[in-house]
């Protein structure tokens, strides 16, 4: 475990103490196994207590964890024969988004997702998973192809947001996102979207119009980053924690608000603790979604998609 989060410290400290005692027992004549058992019991309680009561800000930290599995990690676990394709045919290839075809349980699917890096070098190449317009246009190209060949589309969402850069603006960041929203609304194949890390605003949404939207338990989905909201609302990004709570950005909150369909459980301590287990949890949800959606006609899919989004929102009548 390389990166320890603030709220996990008591657990890590206790674990260290236990392993220290174990070493001591091994190296010396004194038997400390009673103490060890007591501490291990306490560790279990502590873990349940901490991981069972994660605050929104804790989940923000988990969603941003440097070792958190990325789109490609899941692609390799869940699909076979994945072939990646590049480029938007207009400007370039944006490696902040990956797109390709693969088999999911012997059925061809199109897989698209934001792609972060896990170290500085890869993050520079992937622009920290923050796409330019060409990334969204590449995604759209593959979605259209999926529609042509009747393949379901699976989108993994994991971005701080669309890249706020000069070139991105010049090439039409707004239009690229808007175009994806509009076109995804009309795709005549099933679309399943899963937020696996951070779902940052419009940059996330541009891969996020689907028939079913799921979120990993510790992922977040938000209209603006907690830091951004805090600096606008309270003129101080130090209030990010408060903003994270007020904006209701966790999977549990968004399930309650009926914005998402399912919460995909995570292993204790977060997805990065056990990729195999995480992939298995995700597999289960994905299989159910695709099974249900594959039974719908294209017209039913489109009508349900509209109905789904039409009901999101809340207002009063005068």
């Amino acid at each position, binding site marked *: 475990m390389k990166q320890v989060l603030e709220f996990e410290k008591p657990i890590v400290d206790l674990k260290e103490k236990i392993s220290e005692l174990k070493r001591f027992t091994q190296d010396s004549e004194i038997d400390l196994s009673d103490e060890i058992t007591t501490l291990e019991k306490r560790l279990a309680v502590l873990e349940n207590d901490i991981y069972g009561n994660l605050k929104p800000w804790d989940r923000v930290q988990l969603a941003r964890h440097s070792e958190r599995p990325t789109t490609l990690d899941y692609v390799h676990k869940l699909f076979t024969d994945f072939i990646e394709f590049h480029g938007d045919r207009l400007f370039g290839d944006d490696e902040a988004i990956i797109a390709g075809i693969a088999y999911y349980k012997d059925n061809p699917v199109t897989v698209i997702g934001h792609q972060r890096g896990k170290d500085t070098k890869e993050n520079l190449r992937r622009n920290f998973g923050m796409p330019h317009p060409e990334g969204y246009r590449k995604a759209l190209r593959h979605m259209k192809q999926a529609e042509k060949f009747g393949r379901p589309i699976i989108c993994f969402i994991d971005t701080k947001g*669309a*890249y*706020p*850069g*000069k070139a*991105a*603006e*010049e*090439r*039409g*960041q*707004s*239009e690229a*996102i*808007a*175009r994806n*929203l*509009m*076109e995804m*609304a*009309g795709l005549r194949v099933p679309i399943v979207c899963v937020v696996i890390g951070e779902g940052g*605003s*419009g940059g996330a*949404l*541009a891969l*996020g*119009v689907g028939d079913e939207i799921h979120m990993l338990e510790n992922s977040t*989905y*938000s*209209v*603006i980053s907690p830091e*951004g*909201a805090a600096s*606008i*609302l309270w003129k101080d990004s130090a209030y990010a924690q408060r903003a994270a709570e*007020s*904006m*209701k*950005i966790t999977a549990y909150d*968004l399930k309650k*608000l009926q*914005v998402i369909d399912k919460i995909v459980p995570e292993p204790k301590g977060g997805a990065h603790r056990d990729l195999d287990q995480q992939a298995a949890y995700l597999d289960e949800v994905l299989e159910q979604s695709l099974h249900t959606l594959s039974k719908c006609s294209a017209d039913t899919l489109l009508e349900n*998609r*509209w109905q789904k*989004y*039409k009901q*999101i*929102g*809340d*207002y*009063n*009548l*005068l």
Partner: protein
Amino acid sequence: MLKDFFGKRRKYASIPSEQAKADVPEGLMQKCNGCHKIYYRKEMNKNLQVCPNCGYHHPLQAWDRIDTLFDENSFEEWDNDLITSNPLQFPGYEEKVVKDRKKTGLNEGVVTGKGTIEGQATAFAVMDSTFRMGSMGSVIGEKIARALENAKNEGLPFIIFTASGGARMQEGLLSLMQMTKTSIAVKRFSDAGGFMVSVMTHPTTGGVSASFASIGDYNIAEPGALIGFAGRRIIEQTIREKLPEDFQTAEFQLKHGQLDKVVHRQEMQELLSKLLKFHQKGGEEA
């Protein structure tokens, strides 16, 4: 920096005179935001709030905009009874909305309905940047989506004037999802053969520029309007360089191929009228 030690230090701070501090008398006179010249408000109004000297386009309130475009008494408003709730129980949100309702006389930041421009019927939505910066929450998303559905069902074209800082933070993801809701509504309208013009006015940014504003059949803008996805300050912080003065103006977007046209407010009605005529559905009986 070493040269700072040798640079000329100003010995006196300049304090603006009382005369300069006192703002222009409320109501009667108006100072141009562009060239700072002072005009009679009446004169500015007659010029549709465009500065006669420098051509600066001042923001127009929704109803003033509607007055400049539609034939007299031709319009009918839709869904004015939708008002904002506080779905996330966001601290201080209700007070802010109530304050803006009083300030603007509007129930929310968009007016939707139908009317005629030189006798040609069209549905419309006009956003108002003085209501919570025109930010889009559930009510705005719902009203625009409904207006598009109405237009589709009645076979009307759809004209939207956008003015918005983006999605409204206080409604969290519900606001973000209005981008999807409105974009699907545009898609449905468009697939049914509907004709849509998006007119971007100052400012059109964030979630609004990244949804319905950018997907009209024609996307046009008023001169000088700020149009873009991310805010200038955020971009400058991210790329660590100063952005050009004209960055994200309508003219900048036009130069980069992101707009069909930049149109002066005085010529807007004429252009819209022509566009409606071009896209009349007459002749082809559906």
